[in-house]
């Protein structure tokens, strides 16, 4: 199997198997434009992110062998659970956001979906205010407008919330 070399922003080089490298739409586009012998430069990718991505693909192959199913199919429930269990524990929030951005940049669909799901899990219990701060969103409601929405969806504001 042909190996593709990539170099991350901090100068580190990685060798990826060709079929895995092709999972990244960005890398695939570069390969179509240039020779496979060239090293692909990824100035927007950190080395720790690349390590994580390779870890992901290794995990996928392990799970495929374990469950006997091709997990590159999207929305496979068991994979989602297994993935989340593995990746959730050693990925801090900040790292998750960085990785998400990078995977989106690289265009790795299946990993992106799983990371989005992970992020949704971590975000769902946040309060409205903490979300605004976290995502840097401009508060553009008048007090009356916001009060109206809160009343329309009063059922959603009852129950547990985590202030973060």
């Amino acid at each position, binding site marked *: 199997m042909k190996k593709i070399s990539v170099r991350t*922003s901090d100068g580190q080089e990685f060798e990826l198997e060709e079929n895995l490298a092709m999972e990244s739409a960005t890398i695939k586009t570069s390969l179509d434009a240039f020779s496979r012998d060239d090293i692909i430069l990824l*100035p*927007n990718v*950190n080395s720790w992110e690349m390590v994580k991505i390779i870890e992901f693909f290794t995990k996928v192959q392990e799970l495929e062998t374990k469950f006997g199913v091709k997990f590159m199919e999207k929305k496979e429930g068991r994979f989602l659970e297994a993935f989340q269990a593995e990746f959730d524990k050693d990925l801090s*929030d*900040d*790292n998750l*956001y*960085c990785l*998400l*951005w990078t995977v*989106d940049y690289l265009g790795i669909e299946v990993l*992106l*979906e799983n990371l*989005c*799901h992970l*992020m*949704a*899990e971590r*975000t*769902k*219990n946040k*309060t*409205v205010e903490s*979300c*605004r701060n*976290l*995502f*840097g*969103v*401009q*508060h*553009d*409601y008048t007090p009356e407008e*916001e009060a109206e*929405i*809160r*009343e*329309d*969806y009063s*059922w*959603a*504001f009852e*129950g547990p919330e985590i202030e973060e």
Partner: protein
Amino acid sequence: MSSFRSDSSGAAEAVANIEDLLTQILVSVPLRSLARFKCISTHWRSLISDLHTVKNPKISTFFPSKFQDESYESIPLGNSQIPSCWNPLKILNNSIPDGSELRILQSCNGLLLCLCVTTKERRHDVVYVFNPTTNQFRAISSPRVRENMSLSAFTHYALAFDPCKSPHYKVICVSNFFYCYDRGHHQIDIYSSETGEWKHLDTPFFPSPLHFNRIREGAVYCNGAVHWMRNVGGNLSFSDARNEFIRHETDVLHYFDIGQERLGLVSATPPIPLVVRNIPLKDSGKSPTEWPTFDQRYFGESGGHLYLIETYKHCKTQFDVMEMERDYSGWFVKYHVDLNPLFTALPSSNDSVILCLSQEKEKHNEEDSSADLLLHMPGKVISYNLRNKTFKTSVVESANEKLFFDIDSRFFCSEVVMYPYMESLACVGR
């Protein structure tokens, strides 16, 4: 390129600034959280409103139109986030007067239209517009009083709700109370959730009132109009002059155009189904060897088109999926379905109930949308792709499996219609 690289706390902001990415994250956020996040900003509100819309229908559960006992159970699909104890109709039932029966008339883009039928003497019916996701409902008193109960009198309700066009909904009430064959006028009233009031329309005398009273309960909203199908199952006879099966009555479809506020009638006799045409003939073609018995009928909407399916008992595994032309010029056969391979692969069941048609729009290729047919078999819901002829099974968890046998057996007696429901945050109003 990305300034957040030096400051990781800006990473979340960078992610949220990519709209496609934010949308992809929000799709996995449970509805309760999404409702709260609508308060974050006007931009987030519109993003969230677009998530669960007609463009991305995600059918999560099926409600039967009638409930045998007070259980009010529904059939949830495996992909939904609905917990097994979810029973929203029970909550609605607690709000209606004692001795009343709740019936679902229609499911429309995330809202249900329910009718409260009382055994007691009650002059005004009450309809409920209900969102099972949020458990909110609005009780609307009918504008018509049930004055006389002649056999030809009727009242039909329909719900028109399209979240892509407007957050407001309308309820249409068409009624006619007249004695015997006295023709009378159709009374049409429209309720608007925006005004909270009924408006009466002055309509001219409608030429064929008798057709409207054999209406199958349950209107279908499609493309800005609500449609009513007649309750004539089969409607077949054999013509020995033409040596073939024919429909012995011209069928009609009633519809009410919301925008134009006009009641229309469409001559819509469906073609003879293939399984009926294929029945071998005897006596030199003068009579059929077998008489087709009508089994079940599906009338619904998917992807902006009306669909009709009729199945016959002598050949339950094959049927035609008919689509209505956009200009109402008639039904045409869109797919011939042969489920024999499906039943061969799943030998434990030989019967199925057609639940609905669902358009699956592929993310990357909008033109390539194909329809899935959802079928119910005991313990499972099958999603059958009409173009590829492939199927996916999802196991339906139910505390009471016998319940589905009951629903299905009542279904086959044409008493019960199954309504697909997709989760939504639509507001019914205070």
